[in-house]
């Protein structure tokens, strides 16, 4: 029997009850969230379960929502079951003042650099990561540039006299 979104949802609710929530299917991709302490348990279950077999981590990143109190940072996992060819999106939200999330490196070796990148740009602290340091930015950087409080330079600024570049 081919796996579909409905089955995955049922299996998850059977296992985790109301701890998995906010099920949605934007553009057909099953999306749900779990408390951040649960992220490894959920992923381990998705990985090991004989029916689900989400054993390929496609993508890992974060999103910053400065207006959502106590859940400013979302860490987003895109998982793929290559056997049944179905994808899901899994989110955990965290407080930006305590951005501790368990690392997925034990499950997926590929998570190593993706988590480093997420740390580098959003400051998500992946607990248990073997080598959590900046990857694309310089080591000396003391802020996390993808956060929304760091805007890009204002394109309409006039204090710069830059005749050569047409400002």
């Amino acid at each position, binding site marked *: 029997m081919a796996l579909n979104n409905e089955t995955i949802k049922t299996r998850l609710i059977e296992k985790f009850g109301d701890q998995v929530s906010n099920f949605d299917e934007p*553009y057909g991709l099953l*999306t749900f969230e779990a408390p951040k302490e649960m992220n490894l348990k959920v992923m381990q279950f998705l990985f090991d379960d004989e029916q689900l077999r989400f054993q390929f981590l496609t993508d890992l990143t974060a999103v910053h929502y400065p207006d959502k109190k106590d859940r400013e940072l979302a860490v987003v996992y895109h998982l793929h079951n290559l056997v049944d060819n179905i994808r899901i999106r899994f989110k955990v939200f965290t407080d930006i003042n305590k951005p501790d999330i368990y690392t997925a490196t034990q499950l*997926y070796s*590929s998570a190593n*650099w*993706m988590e480093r990148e997420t740390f580098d*740009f959003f400051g998500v602290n992946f607990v248990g990561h073997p080598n959590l340091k*900046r990857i694309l*930015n310089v080591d000396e950087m003391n802020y996390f540039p993808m956060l929304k409080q760091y805007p890009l330079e204002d394109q309409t600024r006039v204090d710069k006299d830059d005749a050569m570049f047409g400002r």
Partner: protein
Amino acid sequence: MSETISHHIKLPEGSIEKTTTTLNLGPTHPATHGVFQNILELDGERIVGAEQTVGYIHRAFEKLAERRPLYQITTLTDRLNYCSSPINNMGWHLTCEKLLGVKTPKRVDYLRIIIMELSRISDHLICNSVVGVDSGAYTGFLYVMQYRELIYEIYEEICGSRLTTNIGRIGGFERDFTNAAFEKLEKFLKEYPDVLKEFENLFSRNRIFMERTIGAGPISAERALNYGFTGPNLRAAGVDYDVRVHTPYSSYEDFDFEIPIGKTGDCYDRFLVRNQEMWQSLKLINEAYKKVQEFKGAEAEVFHADVPDYYLPTKPDVYTKMEALIWHFKIVMGETEIPPGEVYQSVEGGNGELGFYLISDGGRTPYRLHFRRPCFIYYQAYSELTKGSMLSDAIIVMSSLNLIAGEMDA
């Protein structure tokens, strides 16, 4: 005497007792084909450890994208994997079309397939011939370069540029393919098979090449999956995962083609898989071109979908019609509101699954855009691939992985 030395030269702690040598390969080593740094730990000529440093050409694309209207982000995607920028461009257009719910006409899909497969050929061509260069065979590289040139000329006929193409628009192409483009395409389809055959003859059963590549940097299917390998590198390890088949886009489902796979995941298998994929791409282009020619009447003129909010109207219309002028202004000034939504779209890039994760909150620019860059993800495996091999293998493994610094560093 020894006292004077220790007085003047401050050696790091423990460097006398150390039995291994640290070697910095890169960031600007001629053999690394890009800005890569590898800190190798060597015991004689054998590698005992490697640590990669990336990020030398980080250009903050994801941050920049948060302030750009959709059509301006295409130019950012050019600069990811610049060996096959049309695939990136198309991937981005497909992402936008998915978000906006745009349905593209079949002719557009087929034209896109022609372009994407051409760029896959040029990507694989560079990668494979560079593997040749790194094993000491320069001829192949020099020889196939003229056919990459021909591919670039085809791009040029279609969009006006060669490397960073910015080809296509949301909904289709900016203009129809010219006759010159089709003529060049025909020339390519006619001449290239012989060249590819000759290129294969030069390498595939070449004793020296085989000895250099067989067993260099192997990876098992299981490890490759765990490391997030995609594209030819994963298929060389024996997993038949291809985005074009698993989640077809741009009407790939209308075509019949094979996915070549390897077995051992070493440099030789990666080389063979890429070569076979070029044959498959040729087949796809031929089929797509035939389908394009079959369109009759008005259908044969179609080269874009009707998306006035995102597709620039023609210049004569802008000068003579009020609506067209308004659309033009809104698009150019980036004043079109993007419908809210969250979408993940991936395409089979030259070196793996290139994914776009786009979140829109209803503003004029994306709220968040993340690129899933295949070689950033699989480059992590490099230290595992090279551990225990010789120093010269480090180079060939790197080139056969098809690492593109622009894509890795975003």
